């Protein structure tokens, strides 16, 4: 289980009460990885939200060489007390990037999405609080992706065929 003190420092969970954090704690389990080990792969079913408890996790694209690249690949490092795995809340419910342990050791917590949604159904205050945060993250990613596409297509038109 995740340490409640760490949960209190996670930005996305800051608006939740002690009871709500305890409920989330019950749907989670702890895992350890060594440097370079993969937590999950791009394209796998995204059934969990993740929190970094110790170390640093890298999110990156595993696209094979030669496969078309829509826009520049993002490389993101997730530090202690940060949440990731938001694609578990949006179709097609597959991870968009692969996650690797980037530090010597990584300790992470997995929160099962199905159990989390059940909690949201019972406790709408918690659901609203967390969905507001999730939507901000998803929206920002889409916003950046769409702007990247618009820039690329705009450039194609201006230098045009």
């Amino acid at each position: 289980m995740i340490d409640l003190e760490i949960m209190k420092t996670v930005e996305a969970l800051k608006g939740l009460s002690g009871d709500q954090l305890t409920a989330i704690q019950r749907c989670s389990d702890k895992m350890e990885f060594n440097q370079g080990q993969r937590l999950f792969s791009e394209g796998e079913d995204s059934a969990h939200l993740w929190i970094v408890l110790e170390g640093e996790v890298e999110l990156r694209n595993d696209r094979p060489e030669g496969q078309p690249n829509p826009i520049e690949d993002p490389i993101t490092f997730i530090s202690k007390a940060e949440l990731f795995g938001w694609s578990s809340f949006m179709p097609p419910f597959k991870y968009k990037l692969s996650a690797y342990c980037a530090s010597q050791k990584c300790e992470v917590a997995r929160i099962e999405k199905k159990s989390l949604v059940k909690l949201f159904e019972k406790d709408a205050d918690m659901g609203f609080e967390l969905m507001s945060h999730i939507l901000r993250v998803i929206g920002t990613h889409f916003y950046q992706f769409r702007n990247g596409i618009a820039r690329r297509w705009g450039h194609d038109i201006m230098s045009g065929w």
Partner: protein
Amino acid sequence: MIGNDFLRSVGLFKNLDENQLSAVLGCCREKQYKSGAKLFGEGEPASNLYIVKKGQVDLRFDLPGRPTSGKNTISSIPESKAFGWSSFVAPYKYSLSAYCASQVCELIIVDRQCLAGLFEEDHRLGYLVLSNMARVIGKRFHKLEKLATAAPVSTVKVTVHLATCGIVAGARDVMSALMEEMNRSGRPDINVGSSGCIGKCPTEPNVTIEIEGEDPVVYQKMTADKMRQVFQQHVLGGKIQTDFVLNAQ
């Protein structure tokens, strides 16, 4: 005037009860736009969510000194679908411009502040709408990713020859079938147009497919069904349908 029945059919308001739908209705107003009208511009404060009641809206990026066109379209929003979710995501500015892409667009405009107020009063309503919104964004995100890896912009042109001889032979039905396929494909990057007679009246309706890097292909004696086949197999699949090609025999 719209009612709860219409709102219930909109994915964004899925699973809301009657009272919640009525409350949302209080934040809505209707507005009509003519073809080509700009609903809002890129960078403007995003103060509303929109739902297409009738017609189609294109979300486009603007280019300095160039008129807008279908080439600039990132997404096309059909009836009963919502757009303008930037009103719920920082920096609360529209990231694209919206244009009416059908003859007339009837839209439901949902006031963002009013809706956010309802969320604060009823967290269950907020939770349901935000969850639905995450699904909508997820689907658009996925569609755009597929589109972005499929083909660069404007590499495909489909021209239906709509001169009098073509129209008499059924070119309008061909154009309608083409537009239906276009809407289904989610490929606003494909450039569809019309032009006059190519001097082959007995073979009308004619359709020309131009794919960058390949010779143009003219199809003859087209029907709605043949158009659908050509669109699926040639335009999307790259396989020329030789049975229908002009002078191919």
